[in-house]
Structures are given as structure tokens and as C-alpha cells.
């Protein structure tokens, strides 16, 4: 279990507590500046809260050696950079850094999962945006972490790749991995997450099942709009009010 206990960070988070479960996809949503990325970075042990703590199982995350923490928690930053023009395979192998090995089986499995086997020797500079995003996610998976924390992994992906990535993350969750994602798309959170945390101005204003949490009242409070959900559970679409063509 990954637990945030009374996390506070001046100007960004205010007394946020949540217990995240392995085997689930948890979505962190909220308007811009709500503190989503800060919460994710705290959960990953990359940002030290002013007060409060993050517990991984029974140990305080801050007390773990960086290497131990890195073996347990894989983290994908919001705008990942790749400084040198390494090949896809070399990039993915960097995910083995916490283990200080180059476990071929783990690297191959990550390449296969992200459908990169044919591209393994291609330099990163010659990848399309979608291929690059897949390679960066494969880097996280190669480390075989028990938790996958990703900051807006769906940004910059077209629909096909969004679907592929969501499928991969679902498979990870079914294998017992805890998946935590910062998301902007409420429909994706509604349809694909097992659990949703809604942040607003640094406060956790809702936490629970997507159908319960992403109700009109919460959306109105956090985003200040009154959208409508259409469709069946698992296949919801969000309609924004009063902005479509011909609605004025």
C-alpha cells in the first residue's frame, strides 16, 4: 500500500491523505494548478513535503535508500527528456538502473509489452511522438516496479496509442501493480480508473469510485462548469455545456 498521510506543501498541497491500493488504477484529476503533479512527485519520493509523510507498506518513503525506493516505485515525468540520442533498447535498459543490472528478460518483456521489438535499435531522435512515449513507458516497466506513477502519460498520444497504453496499464494492475496517473481527461478517468482523487487548490475534495466521485457537484466545484455525462458506465462521454456550435 502507498499512503499519503497529511501531506502539506506550501502553496501546492494542503493536508492531503489517501491510501492507494496495489492492483488498482488510481487517477489523480483536478484543474490546472490543483497540485496533481506535486502529489504524484511526493508519492514517488521525489518531492519532500513540508509536513506529513508518505508510507510505502510500513516504511516511511523518506527513510528508504534511494535505490530501494526506486526498485519499488517507477515514475514517468510529465515531459520526459532524453538528452542523448540513444537507441530504444538502451533507453529501456536505463529502467534497470535501480537494480544495477541489464536483465535482458525484463528489458525484452517491456519492449514486447509496448510493441517496440521492431524498433529496438532505432535512435530515439528518429521516433514519432507516439513511439517515443511508448519507449519512455517501456523504460518504466523494465524496472519491474511494484508501483507505476505516471504524470499525464496520455498527453501527446493519439487515440490508438491512448487505448494501447490504457490496456497496458490495466494489464499491469491486473498483475498486482499499483498504477497511479495524473490525468486531464475526465472521461478517461471515469472509464478506466478504479478510483479517482480530485484535487482542487491543493485540497483533496473527493476520493472514491469514479461514478461516485466525478459527479456534477464535484466538477462544478473544482472546474466551475456544469457538464453532462452520457452513455453507460465504462463508456461515458462528457459533454461541456453551452459552448458547442449552435448552443448559444
Amino acid at each position, binding site marked *: 500500500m502507498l499512503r499519503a498521510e497529511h501531506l502539506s506543501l506550501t502553496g501546492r498541497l494542503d493536508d492531503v491523505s489517501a491510501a492507494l491500493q496495489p492492483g488498482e488504477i488510481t487517477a489523480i484529476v483536478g484543474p490546472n494548478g490543483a497540485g496533481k503533479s506535486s502529489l504524484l512527485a511526493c508519492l514517488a519520493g*521525489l518531492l519532500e513535503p513540508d509536513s506529513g509523510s508518505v508510507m510505502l507498506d510500513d516504511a516511511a518513503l523518506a527513510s528508504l535508500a534511494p*535505490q530501494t525506493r526506486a526498485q519499488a516505485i517507477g515514475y514517468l515525468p510529465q515531459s520526459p*527528456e532524453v*538528452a542523448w540520442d*540513444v537507441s530504444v533498447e538502451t533507453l529501456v535498459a536505463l529502467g534497470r538502473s535501480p537494480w544495477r543490472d541489464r536483465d535482458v528478460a525484463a528489458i525484452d518483456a517491456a519492449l514486447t509489452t509496448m510493441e517496440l521489438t521492431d524498433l529496438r535499435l532505432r535512435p530515439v531522435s528518429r521516433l514519432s511522438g507516439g513511439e517515443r512515449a511508448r519507449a519512455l513507458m517501456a523504460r518504466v516497466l523494465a524496472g519491474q516496479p511494484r508501483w507505476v506513477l505516471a504524470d499525464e502519460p496520455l498527453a501527446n498520444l493519439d487515440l490508438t496509442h491512448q487505448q494501447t497504453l490504457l490496456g497496458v496499464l490495466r494489464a499491469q494492475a491486473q498483475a498486482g501493480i499499483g498504477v497511479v496517473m495524473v490525468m486531464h481527461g475526465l472521461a478517461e478517468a471515469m472509464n478506466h480508473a478504479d478510483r479517482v482523487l480530485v484535487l482542487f487548490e491543493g485540497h483533496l475534495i473527493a476520493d472514491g469510485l469514479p461514478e461516485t466521485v466525478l459527479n456534477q457537484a464535484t466538477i462544478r466545484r473544482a472546474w466551475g462548469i456544469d457538464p453532462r455525462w452520457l452513455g453507460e458506465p465504462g463508456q461515458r462521454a462528457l459533454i461541456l455545456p453551452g459552448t458547442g456550435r449552435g448552443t448559444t
Partner: protein
Amino acid sequence: MTRPIAFLMLALAIAFPLTLLAGRVWIDPFASPVPNAFIILTELRLPRAVLALILGAGLGAAGAAMQGYLRNPLADPGLFGIAPGAALGAVLSFWTGLAGTTWLLPLFALLGAGTAMALLSLIAGRSGSALLFTLAGMMIASLAGAMMSLAISLSPTPFAMSEIVIWLMGALSDRSWNDVVIAAPLTLAGIAVLLRAGPSLDAMTLGEQAARSLGVDPRALQWLMIGGIGLTVGASVAAAGIIGFVGLIVPHLLRRFTDARPSQLIVPSALAGALLVLIADALCRVLPLQSELRLGIALSLLGAPFFLALLLQLRRELV
């Protein structure tokens, strides 16, 4: 052993004996013996060539590690305060007239490098941020540069002034085994420290935050960098004055022959740096000039057009 390493070792094995023959007095093994050839070889050319290998290796390795740390192909280990700090130490030894005593000039230079390293870690050390490291390094470099100019302008005698200016140009002429004894252990220790930083530098490819998520301790990495660069660059300035551009050119040229991970670039860059300085120094000896061309000047003359070509290439990529 990878292919670039094997190739560079072969090139060194060929170039090293050949450069020993080159100089104002050419030593042709197949012609009639040159008077004093043995002394020229063992007391003049051999220490000089060994020193060229050591310093070149240190500067090449430092450049590879520095570019990896800052994730920037234009980073040169000389830019970050340690070389100017060491040079300032050496200048002070001239200024106080102590440079004549055998061990004192390199000792002053190493003290200067150590002071610059201490300042660098003091200012940038707490956060482990590469940006702060760069800015602190530049601040120290400009401070040391200003103090060097001050020391030169306040030189006690015109003789000291000209000695300082000439020394600053960097050269391997008139070096003895004493200099090798000082530079070799420090440089080798420095390269070992940089190699130890290798895996962390690889993780830095993904940026500082991702590197931390992969278990890199940024403060430990910064200590390794300051230690490794300080030892290699400090030793090189102590033994030969300021020799620029080796750390910039060499890793950049070699990157395409490796898998581009910083850790894989350190050893080839050390070998290629050794080769470059060895050959450049031999060329300085044989150029038909009134007085020998200073190695530091020669490498800068070579380095500046290279830097320009690099900038033009970057500009093309940006447009």
C-alpha cells in the same frame, strides 16, 4: 573491449613511439646515432610524452563525464571554475616568487583547484542541481579570472609578469618526471571517481527528476563530479597550465561511435584525449617556428573552429 577502445589503444601504441622521435632534433632509429639521443629520449621526450598521455586522458574523461552530467554536448570541464582556480593558484606561486621551488607551483595550483572545488560544493552542494552547479562554476571562473588579471597587473617585476603570461598559455615543454609523479596518481584517481559516477550519469540522460526516480542521489553524484573533475583538471593545470578544448572536442567526436551513454564514453574519451594531446604536443615541437608553439594555444587554435562548426550544426538543427 569495444571497437572504439581497441582502435584507440592501437592508435596510441603506434603514435607513442613515433612522437618520441619527433622534435627539434629528429631521432631516426635507422640512421647514424644522434649525440645524446638516450638523454633526449629518457629525460626530455619520455616524461613529456607520458605527461601528455596522462593529462589528455584526464581531460578527455572529465569532458565526457561533464557533458553527461550537464546533458549538454557543449560543456567543457574547463568552464566550471576548477581550471581557473588552479591557474590562479599557480599565478600566486609566481607572484610570490615561490614557483622556482620544485613542488611549489603544482602544489599551489592544486590548492587553487581544491579551493574552487570547495566553493563549488559549498554554493551548489545542498540541492545537487546541475543548473546551480553551472552557475556557481561560472561565477567562480569569472572571479578567479579577475583575480588572475589583478595578480598579473600587480606583478612585482616585469619578469614575473611575462613568466605568468607564458605559463598560462599551457605547455608541456621542459617537464620532468617530477611532474609525472604529481599528475599521474591524481589523474588516475580522478578518472576512477568519474567511472564510478558512470551509471548515475547514464540515468541523468532522462533528466534530473527521472534520474532521482531511478535511485540516483543527486548530492552523491555532485560530490563524485566535483572530486573527479577537480582531480583530473586540477592535476592537468598544475602540470601544464591551461589546456582547453580537449574535454570539449573529444567526447563530442566519439559519441557517435558508442551507444551514446555517458558511462560508455568515459574510457574512449580518455584514450582519445591522450592521443590528441600526444600528437598536438609532438606537432608543436616540430613546427618550424622561432620558438616552440605553446600547446594551449595550438589546441585553442584547433578547438575554436571546431566549436564554431558545432554551433553552425546546432543552428541548422534549430532552424
